């Protein structure tokens, strides 16, 4: 783990456009991490305290099913944010996360970030809007998957 320069953190897509003073505050609660393939970032039901801003690699969000391999819900890559559960009660991971391809990320210390946000509402606003935007994108992607886009139009009998 390494301390993070604000300039490096500012380059992540999730933080693009954030005022430099806010990025500098956030950098104090972030470390740069390299995670090997196969490592589990967290498991369902564990306390959720961190958040990762992926810069490279691939991570699968999954769900354990007894007697079967974990079900992969979604895969995430560079530019994505991993971890929303630290933001709201019960502060437990709802899914697990396993690194599929060696990953690099900025890991944010959730409780430290929350303290920062309470003392610096401007940072809190910036972060909340970005988390909301990321959640909306994920919600929209999930809705699109529910449409079963690749099936035959109208279910068939097209010719």
């Amino acid at each position, binding site marked *: 783990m390494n301390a993070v320069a604000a300039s490096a953190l500012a380059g992540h897509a999730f933080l693009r456009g954030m005022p430099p003073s806010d990025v500098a505050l956030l950098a104090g609660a972030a470390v740069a991490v390299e995670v090997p393939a196969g490592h589990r970032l967290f498991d369902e039901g564990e306390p959720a305290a961190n958040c990762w801003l992926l810069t490279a690699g691939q991570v699968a969000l999954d769900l354990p099913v007894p007697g079967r391999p974990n079900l992969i819900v979604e*895969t995430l890559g560079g*530019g994505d944010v991993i971890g929303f559960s630290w933001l709201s009660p019960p502060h437990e991971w709802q899914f697990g996360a396993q690194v599929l391809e060696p990953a690099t990320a900025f890991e944010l210390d959730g409780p430290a970030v929350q303290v920062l946000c309470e003392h610096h509402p401007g940072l809190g606003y910036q972060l909340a809007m970005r988390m909301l935007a990321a959640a909306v994108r994920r919600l929209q*992607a999930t809705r699109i*998957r529910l449409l*079963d*886009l*690749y099936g035959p139009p109208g279910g068939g009998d097209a010719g």
Partner: protein
Amino acid sequence: MTVQTLPARYRVASRAAETHDTVTLGLDPVDQPIGPHLPGQFTMLYAFGVGEVPISISGSAGPGLVQTIRSVGAVTRALCEVDPGQVIGVRGPYGTDWGVADATGHDLVVVAGGIGLAPLRGAVLAALTAREMYRRIVVLIGARSPDELVFATELESWREGGAEILVTVDRATAGWTGHVGVVTQLIGRAQLDPAAALVLVCGPEVMMRLTARALCEHGVPPGNIRVSLERNMRCGIAECGHCQLGPLLLCRDGPVVSYARAAPLLSVREL
């Protein structure tokens, strides 16, 4: 110009199952073959005694054709069930092509959803045979599940030929190590140069609309995005009007249409 309105006889030389409902046929001409074709164009395939359907051309095999068909109705079911040696009718080629060479000196990006890879296969193969003409060749593929990927056995050879390929599925199965999510999520991962990319998109219409919208959000100009539209093509020669989409007769003005032209038409109800 002479337009072909009578089907030419083609013998089924090969039949390969792509998925549980999709097959790829290799077709050899019995008599005079149809005229030369370009990637993106389509033919009318005739299952004798059953009917005729428009099917995009997936490639060539000498004087023959390669066509991939999904069984979704009576005619396509009959075509999917033909055996090698049987004869079917072919008219065409019809319509506009992808214009692959327009990406010369730039990046060629292909985005396919489900069987939408079939009309794009010819474009990918054409680009790979002239690999040095393009900076990057990027192929983004979305499918329901790994079992429903078409041309799955060819993808490695495309990689070896110089294409960057990202595949995502809606539902992973055991052993799947690729992406899971919608094909639009691959656009960000591909790190495209939006100012220098010609993007060819094919799949169900909703998928194409959402993909084109995502590409625009990433900065790709609508004029650099091409989609393949399908309506009820019947005559293939812009006479019957069944395939009308606003001012377009898609058998003549399509199937490949610039998104700049198509976008206003795709949001009109009942058009």
